[in-house]
């Protein structure tokens, strides 16, 4: 047996303390008495031995002696076997979702937990591959859970703590592709001081994770280690406000040694992405991502004609437009979501595309229109509905048209003619739309001073609003504190930090009480 802190052994001299106390106690005062038997109990005999054994003395002395010994030994920290002095083990534990793979009724993470429990953790510091690497305390080993894994961050973090004579131990299943790039470099740098313990058997795996979200653009990386080409499907759906049953899907071909990056343009909200493939590790085949709402508007212009005046008016408000696409046909529209679509086509069907949040229709026919319409020629007697938010600061009283289709049923009227509504707002299949009863080419609307303001109002109407945050007064804001992990403030090179165990503290208290009791009795 050896001692980690052998210099504490000199405290063993304190073992003489009870003995000294006993000697001091046994210093008898001589006293001559005329008749000794008065001092004795019945049947008590005279004993000449001055050092006779008193059981009560032994009962006091023995625990005192043992307590001194145990306290001293706990301070010296005895150990068996060989201890590499000044060496410290930095253990990196992979907590990627693949570690949840269960085989023989034990997940890979549980296997790691079992290994960690078996290790002598005095000289070990355990790190997890969280985004901000955490140091796990010994008592928290059982509470390790899988989550997003950031191997690079963790390794660079651990390298900051690395000192000469330290060892790095990595527990991983190697599924995370980052390991394949990091481990060779680390091995080259560390040599024998790096140990990688592979957990679980190898099985081909494909996974998905979100690499980047830029405004409405979302980049998905699909990684895999399949050796044969495999076809799969990428599914995604919106989860809020209520999870949609219908999945959008895209066929994907996984080719050996080639990862896939998918770029999707999505509406704000919570989205779920799935990789539809049959394999053992299903944990990394699903990911959810929240796309925050944008204040800028994504605009699509669909027109069968060249409308430079409209595009010029739209070009004034570049600061309100995130990106703008224009096309002549619906089929050529890229697979994206748009906040506002200006449709200047002869015919429109809402059932064709639903990836528009709001639509402005310029004299477009379709089944969404109420029937019949009143076609009127050369009309200029229009009146604005100023209280409507789309018509704020807009005056279309000078509007003249060659032909106009008037509808009378709509409630949200914007521009009214005595025979019907010229511009009105309605919705079809939960998609709000603004209908203009005349085309740009058959009217002077594009040349009216209010037209750009009208366009601005439309853009503002279609722009996604930032979420409102309410902080009710007198309501405390709960801040979540992560108490399961401690960030290491200092790791001593020589590991000379003495951890006072509970039994040392209890022992010290008991020692003090016993000493007081012993002196009091003396």
């Amino acid at each position, binding site marked *: 047996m050896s001692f980690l802190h052998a210099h504490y052994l000199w405290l063993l001299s304190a073992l003489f303390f009870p003995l000294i106390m006993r000697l001091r*106690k046994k210093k008898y005062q*001589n*006293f001559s008495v005329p008749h000794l038997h008065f*001092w004795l109990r019945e049947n008590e005999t005279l004993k000449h031995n*001055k050092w006779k054994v008193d059981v009560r003395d032994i009962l006091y002395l023995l625990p005192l002696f043992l307590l001194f010994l145990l306290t001293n030994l706990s301070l010296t920290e005895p150990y068996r076997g060989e201890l590499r002095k000044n060496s410290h083990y930095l253990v990196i534990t992979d907590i990627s979702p693949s570690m949840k793979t269960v085989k023989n009724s034990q997940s890979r993470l549980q296997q790691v937990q079992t290994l960690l429990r078996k290790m002598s953790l005095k000289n070990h510091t355990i790190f997890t591959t969280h985004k901000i690497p955490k140091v796990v305390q010994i008592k928290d080993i059982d509470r390790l859970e899988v989550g997003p894994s950031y191997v690079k961050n963790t390794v660079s973090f651990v390298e900051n703590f690395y000192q000469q004579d330290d060892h790095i131990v990595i527990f991983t299943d190697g599924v995370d592709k980052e390991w394949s790039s990091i481990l060779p470099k680390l091995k080259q740098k560390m040599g024998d001081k790096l140990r990688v313990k592979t957990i679980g058997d190898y099985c081909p795996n494909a996974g998905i994770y979100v690499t980047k979200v830029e405004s409405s653009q979302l980049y998905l990386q699909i990684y895999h280690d399949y050796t044969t080409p495999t076809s799969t499907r990428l599914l995604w759906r919106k989860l809020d406000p209520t999870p949609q049953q219908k999945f959008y899907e895209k066929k994907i071909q996984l080719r050996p040694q080639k990862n896939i990056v998918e770029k999707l343009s999505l509406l704000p909200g919570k989205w779920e992405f799935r990789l539809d493939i049959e394999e053992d590790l299903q944990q990394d085949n699903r990911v959810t991502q929240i796309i925050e709402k944008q204040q800028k508007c994504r605009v699509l212009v669909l027109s069968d004609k060249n409308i430079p005046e409209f595009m010029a008016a739209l070009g004034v408000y570049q600061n309100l437009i995130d990106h703008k696409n224009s096309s002549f046909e619906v089929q050529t529209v890229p697979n994206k979501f748009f906040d506002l679509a200006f449709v200047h086509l002869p015919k429109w069907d809402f059932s064709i595309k639903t990836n528009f949040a709001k639509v402005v229709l310029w004299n477009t026919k379709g089944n969404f229109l109420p029937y019949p319409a009143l076609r009127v020629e050369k009309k200029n007697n229009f009146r604005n509905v100023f209280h409507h938010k789309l018509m704020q600061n807009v005056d279309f009283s000078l509007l003249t048209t060659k032909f106009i289709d008037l509808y009378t049923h709509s409630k949200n009227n914007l521009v009214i003619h005595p025979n019907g509504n010229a511009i009105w707002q309605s919705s079809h299949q939960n998609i709000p739309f603004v209908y203009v009863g005349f085309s740009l080419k058959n009217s002077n609307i594009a040349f009216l001073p209010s037209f750009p303001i009208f366009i601005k109002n439309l853009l503002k109407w279609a722009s996604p609003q930032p979420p409102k945050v309410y902080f009710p007064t007198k309501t405390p804001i709960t801040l979540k504190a992560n108490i399961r992990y401690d960030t290491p403030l200092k790791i001593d090179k020589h590991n000379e930090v003495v951890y006072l165990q509970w039994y040392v503290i209890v022992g010290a208290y008991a020692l003090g009480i016993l000493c007081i009791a012993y002196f009091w009795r003396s």
Partner: protein
Amino acid sequence: MANSKLYQLDSAEFAKQLNILCLKAKKRKKQQQRLPINWQGKETFEFEEYRQYNPGDDLRRVDWNIYNRLQEIVIKEYEIDPPQHLVVILDISKSMDVFHKLQYAKALSAALVYIGATLLDKVSFLCFPHTQQSLRSFSNNRNIFPFFSFLQQISSHQDVASLKECFQQFRLLNSTNINTVVISDFYTQEYFTSMRMFRGTCTAVQVVSEEELHPQLSGNMCFEDAESNKQHSLFIDKERMKIYHKNFHDHLSQVKNHCWQHKINYLLTEKHNLTFVLNILQTAGFIR
């Protein structure tokens, strides 16, 4: 503890104290008419018998009324009061040497001898063990002070001698007219068996000290028996003190009961005061 200076037997202060005590005792002495002293002792006025005249008898004691009636010369016989003889026996065993008991006992003995020599017919002193050399007898208090010096020099003795042997040696057991005062701590049962055999008047004076009655001890003590020199270590706590008090008071009551059963006068002295000698003399019947 009493002042040990008072018990310096050869000091003037002690002599002064003795004189005071002697005067007090004289005052309290039983008044007796001066009577002729014959060889048997002092005659009393109590008539005892008539007897025939023998030549040489005192004619003053002839009862002439009887002669007139019967023409016989008879002599009146009166009761004779035997001479008052006090024997002071001092225990000088080792146990008496503890807590200055012996010094006080010696002072008491000196006072008894001095007062007895002054008031009584004869006073004897002896101490046991060491009996042979210690016997001193006095019929008056002249030349008594050398005795005090002798008494001062007496020290405790390790030998064990029985009181019975002491009595036998001085033929005291069969003497009925001897008044004995035994001054001891009576830590041996043998004393009582000896005193029981004694036919004369006996007074037992038990000397104890304040330290024995109320010992102030605590903690670890190594006790040494004064007589047997046996040692024993004890931790003195309340429980042990209770045991001591019980045993000691049992002993005192045992001595008292024993004296009461055998018609022995019993006196206990715990405060070492010399006036206690008057109590002894009173209990022995010499003074009022």
